Every structure is written in C-alpha cells, then in structure tokens.
C-alpha cells in the first residue's frame, strides 16, 4: 500500500468521525443564537464549505501555475481534482446559502454582490470542466485548464471583499470584525469554537476527498498511457 492509499484509509475514518463529533457539538452543546434562532445552525455547514471552496480553488490556482512552469502532468492532476471538489463545495455554499436566506431574508436568492460573485465563481469552474471535456489532447487540456484555473481563482478576492466594496444584503465577515483598526471575533466564543472545529473537520474531509479522487485520476491516466502503448 503506498502512502497516498494509507493516508486515504486513515482519513476515511478520521474525517467522518470528526464531522460527526462537530455535529454533536453544534446540535447538542452549542447554544442557539438569539436573533436567528435554530436556523443559524446552517452557518456551521455554510462557512466551512466556503473555506474549503477557497482552499480547493487556491490549490487549483497554485498547481496551475506549477504546471505551466514545469509541465508535469502530476501538477495538472492535482489542480483538476481540487477544482472538482471545490466545485461541489461551491454548489453546497450556494445551496445552503439560498436555504438559509429564505427564513432570514425572506428570499432564496437576490442579485446581491456576494451571491452573484459566488455564482460567477461556480460558473467559471463549471466552464473549466467543460473546457477539459472539449479538448482531446492531454497536454493541451492541461495548459488551457491551468490558465482558466488561474483566472477563475482571481474571482475569490472579489467574492471575499464584495461585502465591503458594495452594499449587500449578505452579512459582513462571519469570523472577524475590525473595530478601531483591531480585528476581533465577530461572535461569542460559544458559537465561534464549534465553527472553528467544523472548519477543521471540513478541511480534513477535503484532504480525504483530494487523496481519494487523486488516486482515481492517477489510475485513469495510467490506463490511458497503457492503452496508448498497446495501440502503438
């Protein structure tokens, strides 16, 4: 068993257990927020999904640059796999946000800066996979996708800053607020700690998915190479 397979096996147990423990903390021990009530529990799935989306697309961005620089397919493989996981998490962000919006804002969707830029991010990375599907040559696919992955990532600072740059219905930063030039937690510790724990659990889960999906991608590339040798 290679080290990737060993870590996948370990994380397959650790990540779901950590997520389960966090859910217990959130639903059994964490207090209910006074303004929003029980529906605020969605925050513990929405915000960590945002963090994973940012990280996943950052990995795509970084390995896209690495591929363009070194032209090693292993970098493109990581970029592709991370983008796929990022796309799923981005869909979860949009869905959980819309569901949370209904009882709190009275609507599932508004063309608010944060929501619109997040939808744009989702569409860019959906395009990233359509681009990959439309190119037959593996090297060309990797080159084009790397460029789009880098461009797509540039939307993330806009998504993040949108609540400060424009007047939006979406609340400002969930984790920290700046008061008199000093960053302070934007919520009491009894709500903040389970949120931080959920973020950690979700990052572990991302690590598991990345390893699992990367092994599949590697096997697929090996199979294509072997088939190409067979034909030649």
């Amino acid at each position, binding site marked *: 068993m290679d080290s990737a397979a060993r870590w996948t096996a370990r994380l397959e147990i650790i990540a779901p257990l950590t997520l389960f423990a966090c859910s217990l903390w959130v639903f059994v021990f964490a207090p209910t927020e006074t303004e929003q009530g029980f*529906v605020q529990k*969605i925050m513990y799935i929405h915000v960590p999904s945002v963090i994973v989306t940012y990280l996943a697309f950052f990995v795509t961005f970084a390995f896209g640059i690495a591929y363009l620089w070194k032209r090693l397919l292993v970098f493109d493989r990581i970029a592709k796999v991370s983008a796929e996981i990022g796309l799923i998490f981005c869909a979860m962000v949009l869905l959980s946000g819309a569901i949370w919006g209904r009882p709190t804002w009275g609507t599932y969707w508004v063309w608010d800066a944060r929501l619109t830029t997040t939808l744009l991010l989702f569409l860019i990375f959906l395009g990233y996979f359509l681009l990959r599907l439309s190119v037959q040559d593996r090297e060309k696919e990797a080159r084009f996708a790397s460029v789009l992955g880098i461009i797509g990532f540039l939307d993330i600072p806009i998504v993040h800053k949108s609540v400060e740059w424009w007047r939006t219905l979406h609340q400002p930063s969930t984790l920290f607020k700046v008061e008199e030039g000093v960053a302070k937690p934007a919520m009491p510790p009894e709500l903040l700690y389970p949120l931080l724990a959920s973020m950690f659990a979700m990052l572990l889960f991302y690590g598991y998915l990345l390893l699992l999906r990367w092994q599949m991608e590697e096997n697929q590339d090996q199979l294509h190479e*072997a088939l190409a040798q067979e034909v030649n």
Partner: protein
Amino acid sequence: MPMNLEYVLISYGLWVLAFVIYIPWIKQKRKVFQQSLKTLKETQRQK
C-alpha cells in the same frame, strides 16, 4: 420542535446526500480503472 427546523434539515441533508453519492462513485470508478489496468498489464505480459 425548533422553528425553521426544515431549513436546517434540508441544508445538512443535501450536503450529506452529495457526498453519499460522490464518494461511492469515485471508489467505483477507481476500482474499474485499477482492474482494467491490471488486466491490460497481464495481457501485455502474456504477449
């Protein structure tokens, strides 16, 4: 019963559902690729 429970259940339910579908799908595809690769290598060795 807590107010707006249905919204919380749908959010968490969708999240779980997404990965309950995604993870077995990936595992299945990985298994198919591994088996195909193994078969192909055995065929090449026999030649």
